[in-house]
């Protein structure tokens, strides 16, 4: 098998390949999420666990999350971003509502009314010396609520 190979064709193909590689790199690079979780995982310090009351939703505007404390003391941390189109949800008495397209969620983050189709994203929670901390850098996607997502102190 012989390939047609002249100078003009070589340069032309080379240029196209380079541009293609560059565009492909740019495009696929944007898929990658910058994972900083290993190095300087920034934990947002919420405060003493004992201050939290059961069956309450706490807004942490500066941390971009909501804490939902359940009846049994289990805790969930939700991203403020609606899973529908990224608006900031507002806390209601017993759940959340999105002002943009009126999706609503319950205190477990489950969709109560569409157009949202996914449960709210969650953040990891840990308790250190009685102080509650939330990793608000890494939103975790989930399609629905499961018991394992709840943190018990």
């Amino acid at each position, binding site marked *: 098998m012989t390939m047609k190979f002249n100078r003009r064709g070589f340069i032309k193909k080379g240029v196209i390949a380079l541009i293609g590689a560059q565009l492909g790199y740019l495009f696929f690079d944007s898929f990658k*999420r910058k994972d900083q979780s290993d190095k300087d995982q920034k934990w947002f310090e919420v405060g003493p666990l004992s201050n939290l009351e059961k069956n309450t939703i706490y807004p942490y505007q500066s941390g*971009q999350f909501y804490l939902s404390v359940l009846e049994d003391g289990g805790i969930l941390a939700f991203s403020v971003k609606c899973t*529908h*189109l990224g608006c900031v949800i507002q806390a209601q008495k017993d759940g959340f*509502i999105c*002002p*943009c*397209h*009126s999706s609503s969620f319950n205190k477990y983050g489950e969709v109560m*009314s569409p157009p949202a189709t996914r449960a709210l994203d969650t953040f990891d929670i840990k308790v250190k010396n009685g102080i509650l901390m939330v990793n608000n850098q890494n939103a975790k996607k989930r399609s629905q609520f499961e018991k394992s997502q709840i943190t018990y102190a």
Partner: protein
Amino acid sequence: MTSKPSKKSYGIFTTFLLHLHPPMVDKSAIKFTRTFGLGGINALLFVILAVTGVLLRFSYIPTPNQAYESILNLQNQTFLGGLLRNLHHWSAKLMVITAFLHLLRVFFTQSIYFERKRNWFYGLGLFALILAFNFTGYLLPWDQLSFWAVTVVSNMPYYIPFVGEGLSNFLRGGPDVDGHTLLNFYNLHTSILPLLFVVLMSLHFYLVRKAKGVTLENPEEKEMVIVMPNLVIRETLVALGLFIGLLLVSMLFAAPLLEYANPQLSPNPIKAPWYFAGMQELLIHIHPTLAILVVPVLFIGFLFWMPSQEIKRENIGKWFYNEQGKSILIYSSLLSFFFTFALVLINDYIIADMMNSLTPLLFGWIPFIIYILLTIGIIFFLKKKFKIDKFELFNALFTIIFTSYVVLSLISIYLRGNNMELIF
């Protein structure tokens, strides 16, 4: 209005204009109602937008901290600065409308087939660019309106499987709307899009000339007149009228500017830019994957597929194809208007609640299926009543879909209040 060209008027400017035009044109081609001057109006709007845009660049600072303030400075401290911004704003809005009307004119005079097929594609490209221009420009004031509208729209591609998220993050320069997004949009708005637009616009003009000008109803009955001054004077009149109208509107109505963008507070309700309002309304009713991916792909595919179809070369240039074309247009648009409106109400008040109580996962499939069935129903009705052929079928389908989009847009803009609930 036939007169001989005077020698003096052949200045540099006129010879340039005459290069865009042929020396002689058919008399019926320059009748105002043949095209309503829409193509020319779009070209002029582009020039106005380019000039005002370049001037705006002298005062605008594309950073989240300073963008909003620089616009306040422009409006309050700069001589005629507000007028400049208003002129840019209203011209941009008008261009979406005139470009759409131009598209309708071309479509309903069958000017998208044969030698005009390629130009229809370029035209669709130009329309997409106009929307991209408007959307990227929408973010630049960095107020509550622009920030949240762009947040909502830039999250829409998430529903495209596999590539959606990458695409969103690529355009935004990250997972959130922030300084990177502003810089991206600014750069697109002021350099890349204008460049693409000029290239496509030149090709668009060139192909109009190559297709021997605008479509004419009876190309055999020719009565040629000299372009200068017969056509040029009409163009000048339309241009002057348009410019005076724009100036008046810009003096009377200010471009909107809400408070400084606050990424932690979504206003209630938040609405997409008006040309995407129909899309937003659609999102309330049907499943996001359908609304973002399936429906647009089908419709755009339909637009590109139509002119490749085998069609008899007849009635090219005749408004609405033939006499019953008008009736078909009226029937299909009225029927589409009423059933879209009714479907929105029924879905909002009955189906949505019913489905919610069952399972949210099934959200949005039923109204979509009902819509398709209704469309098929209308087509069958028209087929029986008018015995429509392929040409008329295209026209009817196109009319039904764009009427629905207009209805959805109007509902979203005027009938949605707090929490996106319907208000009357």
